């Protein structure tokens, strides 16, 4: 923990704003090391992450099942704030986690589903098969990962789903420019 006493804060006041500076309280956490220093914290962390990879399949199955359960609730009860939120949260978690767990195509399919939930003007008007295909795709990608040809098939599948979802969203939002802009804007995540 930071034990050093931070210095005093300096406040410069201007017409519409104040600029507040203080000596960097974390400066002492920076160590000057020689260029020859062999410590590699990033490499060490990557190794530790690889050490966890034996658990990724199980984690991914749990996440995919949570998504399917949320979808089953939607099918049973329809869309409400609560059911929508749980379906979105489950899909959003897969979007964020799946690539780390070694399932980038599942992440892509989940992202496409997130976009539908976020940007469809009326979720009740979204063709049920479109949502179901996304759920099934995630499940298929997770369950069949060990097959040799799966990676290619999964990539094609998630791309096709995204194409269909985008076509639907673009049409459904033709009169909602702010959503249209968000749908068409590029992701800030670098490509694989």
């Amino acid at each position, binding site marked *: 923990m*930071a034990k050093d006493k931070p210095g005093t804060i300096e406040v410069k006041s201007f*017409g519409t704003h104040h600029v507040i500076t203080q000596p960097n309280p*974390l400066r002492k956490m920076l160590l000057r*090391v020689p260029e020859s220093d062999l410590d590699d*914290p990033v490499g*060490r962390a990557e190794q530790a992450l690889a050490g966890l990879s034996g658990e990724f399949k199980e984690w991914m199955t749990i996440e995919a099942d949570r998504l399917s359960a949320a979808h089953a609730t939607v099918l049973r009860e329809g869309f409400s704030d609560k059911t929508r939120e749980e379906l979105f949260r489950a899909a959003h978690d897969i979007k*964020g986690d799946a690539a780390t767990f070694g399932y980038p195509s599942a992440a892509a399919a989940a992202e496409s589903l997130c976009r539908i939930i976020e940007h469809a003007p009326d979720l009740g008007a979204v063709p049920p098969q479109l949502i179901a295909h996304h759920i099934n795709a995630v499940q298929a990608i997770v369950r069949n990962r060990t097959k040799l040809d799966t990676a290619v098939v999964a990539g094609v599948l998630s791309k096709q789903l995204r194409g269909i979802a985008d076509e639907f969203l673009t049409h459904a939002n033709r009169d909602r420019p702010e959503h249209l802009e968000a749908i068409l804007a590029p992701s800030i995540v670098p490509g694989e």
Partner: protein
Amino acid sequence: MYRIDFNKLRFLICDDNPHMRRILRTLLHSFGAREVYEAEDGATALEMYTHYVPDIVITDWSMPIFDGLELAQMIRQPESKGNPYAPIIMLTGHSEKRRVTVARDAGVTEFLAKPISAKGLYQRIMNVVANPRPFIKTKTYFGPDRRRNTTNTYIGPERRGSGEVEVLQQPSLLEKARSAI
């Protein structure tokens, strides 16, 4: 060359997903961190923030009770008893530019889009440790300076009013926060 002495840094991570918390904990421990506190929602994180006074907060955006954005806004209260200056790294599956802007306007220091990588996380931590930005307080904003680049090529009206009027020296709020626990 510089590297970070992680074993002196205190982290608070906030994510409702237990798998992501495990990943984060693993990465931070591998970097050398010893003190890593975890919360699964924004409310618990705020409580832990006040109690443990972490050096760096890493938070997800979407969470139950209140989310990472609200957590950032609550931390960035200049009049609060706690430390309003702690670096906040938002780690999120949201990957649209619009979201980055919203997070920035809530006072988030760094934005890291999932999928997480050891290198990406390390770089963000290095940034907040080595290059802290001054804080700006206006009527509607309190947080790290949102202008990262100083450029002479900007064309447009100057939105910050000039006319320096005074310089005040105040005791550090971080120091005050730490002495209160």
